[in-house]
């Protein structure tokens, strides 16, 4: 069970760079994204100047960008899908040629 949690399309999740990045210049801490995402990617830091962080980037569902659509000030960005999918395919090829 824990094994498939850590892979995406057959490659280890931690080799895939997919997560939201918060632009703190734009973020107004409305917490819509925090409330929306069911995967505990975001965490609140109530008593700190930066009140929201991407605490669990590996929980983020690869290619999902759903929370960014809840963000009024457009403060959430993601890596390029094309590059990430290329990388995943390369990782898979490398893995299969090692078998």
């Amino acid at each position, binding site marked *: 069970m824990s094994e498939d949690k850590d892979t995406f399309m*057959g490659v280890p999740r931690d080799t895939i760079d997919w997560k939201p990045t918060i632009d703190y210049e734009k973020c107004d801490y409305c917490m819509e994204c925090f409330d929306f995402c069911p995967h505990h990617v975001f965490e609140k830091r109530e008593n700190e100047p930066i009140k929201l962080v991407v605490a669990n980037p590996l929980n983020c569902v690869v*290619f999902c960008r*759903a929370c960014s*659509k809840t*963000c*009024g000030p457009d403060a959430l960005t993601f890596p390029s899908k*094309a590059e990430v999918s290329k990388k995943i395919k390369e990782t898979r090829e490398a893995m299969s040629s090692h078998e």
Partner: protein
Amino acid sequence: MSDKYAVLPCNGLDKCAGQMTKEIAMLLCEGTQNEMICPVFYRVADARYDKIAKENPLLVVDGCGTRCASKLAGEKGLKIFRKMTVTEEAQKRGVTLPTDTLRLSEKEIALCTAMADEFIKEETAVPEQMVQAVEFPAPAEYLIHKKDKFIFRVPTEGFYFSENDCWLQVVGNRARIGITDFMQQSLSDIMFFTPPPVGVELEQFDEAGNVESGKAVFELICPVSGKVVAVNTELLTAPERINENPYEQGWVAELELTNFDEEKDFLLNTADYMKILKKKVDEFHVNKQKG
């Protein structure tokens, strides 16, 4: 083209984009039979607008990604005929909106006028390619997962799935794509559908349109590469087909496959998708209890 629309702006007062929705709504209503819905009053008094909103095609004008007007439409169980978001349109047209004032200058008014025109433009003709060349058989059988009162179905034959909850049904070198029963239920009532453009060549994992419910916007992530040869235009007026029947009438687009043999490796069969689905259902359930 209908001769009367209901117009619902978000009327967000504390942002320029929100202020602009009011301007757009006024432009849409002036000198026409269209009727404006005040989002503030609608929240407290259903009766005032319910008839207008239910009997006429609804135009929704959101200021920003918070989608207050769309969410309100969702809460009231309305179907959206057409919608636009000011910040998105501004971005598309290379207009930077001011952050230091709420007053609209000529530049913003010009954008409002352009958006209002766009709203009432003739509907784009149904693409020729709608003529179906291929028959896609209905799923013969489903694998079922039950959790509390929820039942999630996954077709057993002829379908592939992605970890992003999209399905693919392949017949020859054509395929249909859509969203799975699990995702359809997570979104709940779908009220708006944006199809991918017909004719466009999509790479695997590119965005292939999106669907929107009161809860969220879901981007369809295309499970394979291919050229979009048709879209399900019925969903433009009846997006609820996706809720009713996600694997048949709720199909989203038809593709001509370009690299399927290679890409197949990245897709899941019914059994593997079922495993992922169960995990997602459990996680979702746990979160709900916590929340």
